[in-house]
């Protein structure tokens, strides 16, 4: 590594955006950031921050606006932080471990107009968005989702269907939420309720997560729910979480067994889901298999899923 002669300029001016600009002018090609196997120079970091400032300005955000930042230590935190400074806006960073009401309070109190968060948290933020009238934009980055599945406890449901069925995406969320509530109630979980976009809860605890994505003419809906409580101990053996914060690392969840006292077999769950969904959508279900074309895609996707770095 070479240490070139740095320009000996005087003290930096106050103002975080200005500091970054002056430092970048001084150390342009020098390393600013290392992350995993990537190195960003001061110039690169400055440009990434400029792009974020420009993008946020394009959403109509500007001086004095509060923008929440709920990110772990990844480069996007740094770029977003300085991007927001360049905009003259105010960064409201908070703990990525926060859940539910804690986030809702901060977003409401600060009057944040936008939040930049990991894609994993988008459904939690959507769930509380109705409580935060100022929050207009949920900006997501990173792909750090971590889903734990178990043979006894967890069920994964996907739906792929025509977007034309629900012209308003909120209606898609609402319908799926209502169907799930009906299913849970039929199975004995009397306290189940649809909690805005993103979840079905019983009491304050999560009983199902709902995520809906759109692509071209399709909606892809991903649901995860639990028949029985999940044993999360194995998860923590693979993923290190400092012992003193383990309790806070997971969102409180519940299961059909805990809510209803009944050990519901997967077959029963399937039947009830198919009945409720069928009557709600006015469709019948025919058990089938993947087509030949889908089978090709399936083999490719399986191979990709198994390719670990």
């Amino acid at each position, binding site marked *: 590594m070479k240490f070139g002669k740095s320009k000996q300029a005087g003290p930096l001016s106050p103002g975080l955006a200005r500091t970054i*600009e002056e430092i970048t002018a001084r150390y342009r090609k020098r390393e600013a950031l290392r992350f995993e196997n990537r190195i960003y120079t001061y110039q690169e970091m400055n440009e990434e921050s400029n792009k974020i400032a420009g993008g946020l300005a394009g959403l109509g955000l500007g001086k004095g606006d509060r923008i929440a930042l709920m990110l772990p230590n990844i480069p996007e935190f740094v770029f977003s932080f300085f991007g927001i400074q360049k905009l003259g806006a105010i960064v409201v960073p908070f703990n990525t471990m926060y859940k539910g009401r804690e986030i809702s309070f901060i977003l409401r109190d600060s009057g944040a107009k936008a939040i930049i968060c990991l894609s994993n948290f988008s459904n939690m933020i959507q769930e509380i968005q109705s409580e935060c009238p100022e929050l207009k934009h949920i*900006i997501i980055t990173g*792909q750090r989702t971590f889903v734990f599945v178990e043979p006894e406890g967890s069920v*994964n449901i996907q739906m792929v269907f025509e977007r034309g069925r629900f012209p308003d995406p909120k209606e898609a969320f609402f319908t799926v939420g209502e169907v799930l509530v009906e299913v849970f109630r039929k199975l004995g979980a009397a306290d189940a309720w649809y909690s805005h976009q993103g979840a079905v809860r019983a009491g304050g605890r999560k009983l199902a997560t709902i995520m809906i994505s759109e692509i071209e003419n399709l909606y*892809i809906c991903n649901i995860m729910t639990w028949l029985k409580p999940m044993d999360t101990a194995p998860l923590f053996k693979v993923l290190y979480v400092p012992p003193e914060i383990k309790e806070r690392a997971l969102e409180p969840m519940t299961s059909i067994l805990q809510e209803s006292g009944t050990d519901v077999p*997967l077959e029963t769950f399937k039947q009830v889901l198919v009945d409720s969904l069928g009557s709600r959508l006015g469709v019948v*279900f025919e058990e089938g298999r993947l087509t030949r074309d889908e089978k090709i895609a399936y083999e490719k996707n399986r191979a990709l899923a198994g390719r670990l770095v």
Partner: protein
Amino acid sequence: MAQKEHTWRLLYNPEGDVADIVAYGASVAEGRIAGKYQLSTTLVPDTLIIQRSREKGIIAGADVTVDKNLAAANSIAIAKMARQGRNSARAIGTIQLSELTSKASRNFSSVDVDPDDPAVIIYTSGTTGNPKGAMLTHRNFHFQCTTIVKSLISFTHEDRVIGVLPLYHIYGLANALIVSFHYGACLVLMPQYSPQSLLETIDRNRATIMPAIPSMYQLLLGLARTKSRSINIPKSLRACISGGAPLSLAVMKDFMTVFDTKIMEGYGLTESTSSVCANGVGGIYKEGSIGKAADGVELNVFDEQGREVPDGSEGEIAIRSETLFKGYWNNLEATREVLNDEGWFFTGDLGYRDSEGFYFITDRKKDIIITHGYNISPREVEEVLAEHPKVVEAAVVNVPNVKGDETVTAFVVPKFSGPEGAADPAGKPTHRELQEFCELHLAPYKRPRQYVIVDSLPKSATGKVLRRELRGESEDTRLIERSDA
């Protein structure tokens, strides 16, 4: 044909695996998207897929790194989700950051700000009520970097700084991110922390400066002591900073020896942006002290009437500095409670100053336990318990009991000796042992009435003990309750 529109296909896969969970939905979606895999003309109907995995597993996003060996050793299968790109499905109601920036210019002319405008609002939890948003200004950070840090540590553009502390917290934000860039240094970011990965990151990057919290020093030291051949102890650190909670003298000394470095212990609060004093500066260290005031900072001790107290007398520690926050966001009342007209910020920490200008914290103002008319300092009792050979740390709180009264209770963490699950030759301390130990060292009214052995104490992001949780008073704010308003 009309019939078809009312028929959905059901794919039922009750005995699949983690890769199936990822692959099924993706393949059905791909099959439906025009232009892809159109090998046949069969139309694919809308589809419902119900799946269960026959094995324990993790489905990980593209940016998650999972330790393959560790997963295999614990019989956990892993599947990776496909990387989302610009042409992938997008979650409804959200914007991808990459989408936002792809259209934006590399140039942006910064909006002018007043140095006294808030740059950041950081929410801090008090002992009661909702968190308060501390407004930190551009001037606060500027003064921190140009004056305070300069008097404590010599940052240069050749330093490589470990960014393991969370940047959303003031400690990491000010001392890793902002200071590092102010001096043109290189910040080494760590998204996920484990003692092992921290050790490797220091080593691989030959890091020179590390701000960290006491438990990290303790665990790194523990790892270094396992004497495993695969562990290389890096000696590149020239300066370490500890903060957030007190660092035990033994850990500090041993760490400095094993890693051939220096540790400085800083003291500061969210409301002070930066450390306002530090112990161990220039090798001058006083046990139990938080150090002397840093350059540009005034510290003082006041009694309850707001009068300055002489050296050696206890009172509340107050700070006056250009790094002091502007106030709490939208909360003038809370601001006035802690910030007086002369610009003093009252920390809520009780303590004193010795004749050489070193400050000592004796307790938190609101953590004092009052029992049968006596004031007990939990900190004093905790320090006694921590000296017990079988104890790592302890927290003493007043716990409500069934009689509607309160019981002074000590939560005790037994010494960690070896990897998790390994037999502990020393054994856990018994109630009786702890009681006898306290009888030796404490006045009767200060002795806990009850001892609870726990694996760990609940702590904040920087390692402060969350006493409310121990008292069982904290609400579970992770819950989202139904509001029928």
